[in-house]
């Protein structure tokens, strides 16, 4: 009897949930770090909203949901880019309405058929306990692709985070690299929604990476710490869910966000580790 491992040893669905969760933690930890460095939290949020109507429409017409999610993500990125190009003063208003509009559209599409009513909660908040081996395969592929891209393109990504103009003058194709980064965020959101849901995947993208940014000073370390925090959140969330009968995906995100705020509070009470050079 071991209360820390029994839920996983005795239940195949909990094993699958843990494996899927760890794969999602790897992808979101790496991509989330790049998003935080690049200041793209906003676009991650947009993507997470954009996939919902795509998934709903895919369910309605009977095609694989990840295809619908990818189309929805593409529409959302295009919509945000178009709004930012056209309007100057109130782009936050227009983009905010785009977010809510996509969310509402998704709910409307799902409600179109009564047989989907149950799946709405699953799409919005995850169905990690019902994850199958096919989605685990996709999550594994995306985790590997995302890690390899982040490793291979770490220099231009970091230069772009510092100063996109400088990266362009240095000879990097910044537009292309930006599209690659958006694609990485999109595929990560698409394979992660089964575990934590479209509304909560944003938490997995930001919370572990944000916590890591508070803790370490090097980008490589930030990615590793971010993944580790994500994995810990998945394990902790699943345990909470098992023993207290809570929604699994939401429990995972609560643990991740909780770790962030606890770190923030603890750090503000500790003396600063950073040296304070006094003059220029």
């Amino acid at each position, binding site marked *: 009897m071991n209360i820390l491992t029994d839920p996983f040893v005795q239940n195949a669905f909990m094993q699958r949930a843990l494996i899927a969760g760890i794969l999602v933690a790897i992808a979101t930890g790496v991509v989330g770090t790049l998003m935080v460095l690049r200041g793209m939290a906003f676009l991650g949020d947009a993507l997470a909203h954009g996939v919902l109507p795509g998934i709903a429409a895919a369910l309605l017409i009977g095609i694989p949901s990840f295809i619908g999610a990818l189309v929805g993500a593409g529409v959302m990125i295009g919509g945000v880019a178009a709004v930012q190009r056209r309007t100057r003063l109130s782009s936050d208003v227009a983009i905010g309405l785009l977010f809510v509009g996509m969310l509402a559209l998704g709910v409307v599409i799902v409600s179109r058929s009564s047989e989907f009513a149950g799946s709405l909660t699953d799409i919005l908040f995850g169905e990690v306990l019902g994850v199958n081996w096919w989605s685990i395969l996709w999550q594994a592929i995306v985790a590997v692709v995302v890690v390899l891209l982040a490793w291979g393109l770490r220099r231009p990504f970091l230069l772009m985070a510092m100063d996109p103009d400088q990266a*362009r003058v240095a000879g990097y194709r910044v537009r292309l690299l930006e599209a690659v980064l958006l694609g990485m965020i999109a595929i990560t959101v698409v394979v992660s929604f089964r575990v934590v849901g479209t509304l909560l995947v944003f938490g997995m993208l930001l919370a572990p990476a944000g916590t890591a940014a508070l803790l*370490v000073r090097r980008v490589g370390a930030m990615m590793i710490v971010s993944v580790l925090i994500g994995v810990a959140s998945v394990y902790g969330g699943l345990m909470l869910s098992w023993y207290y009968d809570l929604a699994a995906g939401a429990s995972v995100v609560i643990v991740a966000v909780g770790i962030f705020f606890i770190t923030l509070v603890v750090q503000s009470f500790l003396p600063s580790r950073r*040296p304070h050079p006094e003059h220029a």
Partner: protein
Amino acid sequence: MSTAAINATGLDIGYAGHPVVSGIDITLAPGQWLAVVGTNGSGKSTLLKSVAGLIPTVGGSLSVLGHAPGDQGTSVAYLSQAHEQGFLLPIRAKDVVRMGRWPVRGLLRRLRADDEAYVDDAMAALGIEELADVPLGALSGGQCQRVHLAQAACRRADLLLLDEPTSGLDAASRERYLALMDVERDRGAAIVSATHDVREAARADLVLLVAERVVACGPPDEVLTAAALAATFGVIISDATGPVVIDPHHEHGHHHGPGTPRVRGHAAGYDHDHGHDHDHGH
């Protein structure tokens, strides 16, 4: 060395097809330093961005190291005016300088011993060796500026484009920067710097005075006259130590050398009636 670092003929620069400065003619040879002097909104940064290939030129011809702007690969180092960083970057000062060597080593190859030597040299030249392990976020404005200058210097580029390189630097750091510019020129690098600082411009080989037009272009002792500076900056007054050029966009004045002619009041009779007191929000 026949290829000019910069060759501009009848060059018009600006944004979205609207010229900010028209009719620029410059030939900058390797090993020469061009200082572009003007107020904010005068077209200095626009010129640097055009040469860097970041914005298209509006008219005329411009070649950079024998190529179209932006096609010169890794041989141009660019220091932009604002060092924007996301809300935080967990990165140490020395890592920022090292980034200057990345374009030379491609995506994956490790930095070699000579790369590290260039990094160390640049940091020593700017006096920031002891800041190596300090996180970027903990640096003061002047320290951060020196870190970015070191990043540009360690590239060993054929052309350095420096936008406001001395902003935030104290007197000692400014001297280190000027000494570094001498080293870079001796190495054969061409330099273009955009500056408000007339004393910095006096050290360059060529000076281009801009005020939404070319006011003057040539060697500093011919170009940095009271009349031309008045036309560039708008107002020149004198105080006990010599002429002070008042830049309407900056609270502080710029003293220049005791050898410069003294000018009292605004330089009557010289053309300076174009609006310097508006900003162009690019």
